[in-house]
């Protein structure tokens, strides 16, 4: 089992090829034992300046950017498609207006791509993590995060994803993506994150 988190391409690169046959528990622990999110972001930046060599190293035939342009996407595995750094599938955070679970047309377009992808790849499961900004009450915000995750789920189901492939969870305002009491931070925190696992 493999988890895909947008923030962790370096982890993917390191573990994808290596642990294909390892037991699920072991991989899960390795990933969970990784550095906290702040550190990941920093390492992310570090890796990028080194070039993307590390990214490809563990993956047979996998490449990014230029490679995808010449490879027929229908021939690519779910893992390879999720590895791509461009395109709708690489966009795994959906943002919302204050006190709203309404999707913008851009978000719907992104989610439709995800939905078709999930529908076409039965081995993929997605955890939809709903979040809210800090304003107002915590319990209301966790309900709001739940509704946001549900909004996303509906679009994915409509595209043919199966209910077994989708899990929603709301964190409310408990896990902000950006700290601070600014409009910018709030906007970043009103979100649903799509977290992929390829089983």
């Amino acid at each position, binding site marked *: *089992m493999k988890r895909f988190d947008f923030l962790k391409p370096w982890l993917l690169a390191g573990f994808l090829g290596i642990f294909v046959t390892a037991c*699920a*528990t072991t991989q*899960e*622990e390795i990933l*969970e*034992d990784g550095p906290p999110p702040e550190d990941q972001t920093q390492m992310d930046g570090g890796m990028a300046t080194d070039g993307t060599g590390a990214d490809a190293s563990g993956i047979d035939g996998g490449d990014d950017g230029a490679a995808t342009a010449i490879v027929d996407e229908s021939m690519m595995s779910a893992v390879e498609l999720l590895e791509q750094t461009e395109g709708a599938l690489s966009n795994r955070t959906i943002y919302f207006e204050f*006190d709203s679970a309404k999707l913008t047309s851009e978000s719907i377009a992104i989610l439709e791509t995800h939905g078709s992808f999930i529908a076409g790849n039965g081995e993929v499961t997605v955890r939809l993590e709903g979040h809210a900004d*800090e*304003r*107002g*009450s*915590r*319990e*209301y915000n*966790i*309900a*709001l995060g*739940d*509704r946001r995750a*549900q909004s996303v789920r509906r679009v994915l189901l409509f595209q043919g994803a199966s209910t077994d492939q989708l*899990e*929603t*969870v*709301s*964190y*409310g305002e*408990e*896990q902000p993506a950006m*700290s601070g*009491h600014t409009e910018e931070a709030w906007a970043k925190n009103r979100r649903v994150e799509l977290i992929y696992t390829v089983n």
Partner: protein
Amino acid sequence: MKRSIICLFVMFLWAISTAGRAALTIEITGGTEGALPIAVVPFDVSKLASKLPADLAQIVSSDLNRSGVLKVMDRGALPASPHYSNQVKYQQWRGAGQDYLVVGRVREDSPGIYTIEFQLLDVLKQKQLLGRSMKAKKRNLRSRAHQISDFIYQQITGIRGAFNTRIAYVRAQKNAARKYVLQVADTDGFNAQNVLESDEPIMSPSWSPDGKSLAYVSFENRRPEIYIQQLATARRSKVSGFSGLNSAPSWSPDGKFLALVLSKDGSPDVYTLNTATKRLKRLTKHRAIDTEPVWTQDGRSIIFTSDRSGSPQLYQINVAGGRAKRLTFEGKYNSAASLSPDGKYIAMVHGERGQYKIAQLDRETGNLTVLTDSSLDESPSFSPNGRMVLYASTRGSNGFLYAVSIDGRAKHKLSDQAGDIREPVWGPFESK
């Protein structure tokens, strides 16, 4: 997979021990105009073999000051140090502008066993209003001091004191071994004890009416689930782990039911759960968000937050079912109701022009009074005597606990730099 997750988030459950932890400190931030002047003389401890681990008069003074009803004379300004009523020269205290005077003394009956005696005196009438003698052990000295505060407060105001009760809250700490801690503490923030520590969020603590258990939401399995935990034994059980949301538990006044919020049937709705039979009943059925249920004192209805009108507002619904009635109309955002014990007031988070403050609705008149002047306030919780509202306020990068009197006049902060404190709930009176 489930097992691995459990392995990852090892939980440390602490039986409630007597060991004190980092205490909150108190800062009175509200005005004390109109508060009645009272002097509390340090109790006589000269006959004790060893130093008393708690300054009783200091604890009492701090309690009385926080009430906003009484203003305790500075210790340094005390004109004399009597310990018995017959040592008191009333003119002296009258001259010092005091209405009331408290004197007391402590005896050690056997090692670690004390007798505390105190007297409350009326300076103007020159007579004793109250005198009590109480036994204490080393470990409950602070609690005894809070009881003394309760006696004094009740004698002067006619209202039962709530100093000798406890509060629960969640502390989030960035650089600690466990990021989230559920704690209970005395109402002055001392004697904090860990109930649960976790790497994942803990939310929504709710006291059982007997004060012996807490219900709360824990993300230890990477999704919100509701647990009930006995404080004395740390024994706990998961009571709700449906798919989707399991949140906002609230005990019924008789302690037999939990109101809770589930989204397993679509959108977040309020349910009731019989804690003995585990029978679950859906109470609201609406496409909108329905959450934050609290029971009315008669146990017959539930007040909750819903955005069915387009923005969050408070509603009331009969537990037997029926139509929900809207309660709040002022402001775009009203949520997180806490009902005063007499049912006359509802405290809530009131959002207007981007500011979230604590407000109070008078149910008889329909008047809404804003009690706080900050901008990111949440989680109001009435004291069991209905005189104060405890809440959390975010300042800078941390949340702090504040309490405000129901007239909005007196306010104090329970501060602690070691973390971000949120979701305070004031526990019930100690069951006798």
